[in-house]
């Protein structure tokens, strides 16, 4: 509206909100029930047996509602990453 608005610092609250949402989604996975943590580790270990896992390309998502937890593991597999069977 006012030209002075342009010079104001960008508001920080939306950044805080986004950071928290990302962080807590992760922390709820790692500090939540042991079962989910166990599943995450074992599933990734199984995949790692067959595919070169790049940590940057693995996304673990967790959704916690009152009665159900949803664990979503998203692994990006590049075409040349498949390990050759020895």
């Amino acid at each position, binding site marked *: 509206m006012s030209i002075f608005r342009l010079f104001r610092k960008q*508001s*920080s*609250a*939306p950044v*805080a*909100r986004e*950071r*928290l*949402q990302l*962080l*807590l989604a992760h*922390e*709820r996975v790692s*500090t*939540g029930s042991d079962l989910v943590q166990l599943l995450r580790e074992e599933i990734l270990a199984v995949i790692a047996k067959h595919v070169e896992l790049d940590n940057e390309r693995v996304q673990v998502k967790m959704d916690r509602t009152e009665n159900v937890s949803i664990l979503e593991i998203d692994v990006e597999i590049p075409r040349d990453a498949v390990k050759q069977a020895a």
Partner: protein
Amino acid sequence: MGKVIVVTSGKGGVGKTTSTAALGAALAQRGERVAVVDFDVGLRNLDLVMGAERRVVYDLVNVIQGDAKLPQALIRDKRVETLFLLPASQTRDKDNLTPEGVERVIGELKEHFDWIICDSPAGIERGATLAMRHADVAVVVTNPEVSSVRDSDRIIGLLDSKTVKAESGERMEKHLLLTRFDQARAERGDMLKVEDVLEILSIPLLGIIPESMDVLRASNLGAPVTVADSRSAPAMAYFEAARRLAGETLPVTVPGEKRASGGLLSKIFSRRAA
């Protein structure tokens, strides 16, 4: 039988002790019998905030270890007749709090009081887990600030797993008390909004306490803020929160909000409380 409330937060300095004193006093000012219990063994402060620091003879650890009977240790407030304080020990450490001892003391308090309000120490160690252990209801005190919100999230996890209620498969009732809130800064986008915190923590809102000089003033004087100045903005917000704790349904007002109330926030509140 009295209802046991734990006032907890994970993070220190967000207003647990202030809120314990204010909510306890507010309930007692309605004529109900209230005991506020300081679980911060080694770093007690509830006595100071309530202006009873010179009257402490026995404490929670004395009662647990059998050195004193509960009625000997309880300190009656000089201004509000039905308000009592059970102080924490200043000299012993928190290892003196045993699960069995805490259970016995809480059980005894429940027979004599309508409300037992436990002021939890910061952190997630023994003192904090014992303070929440026997609670029927949790008040999660949170500042609109990232580290406080994160720690509250951790505490909510503990409330859902480490309490007697949770362990016996019951749902732990949890309420958010947003403290040190500044509506003008939230409107400018420089502070998390009430809706942001509610969405992230997804527990129902008990009240919004505005950032205010009256809170420090009250603790300087050694009186719960609802007693020191019952017409101040934080006192009114605590009175409202106490009424909600007692089961009344009231729309949550945002202190300092310019718009007419009954807008988005009350919709959020009614939706979450439903």
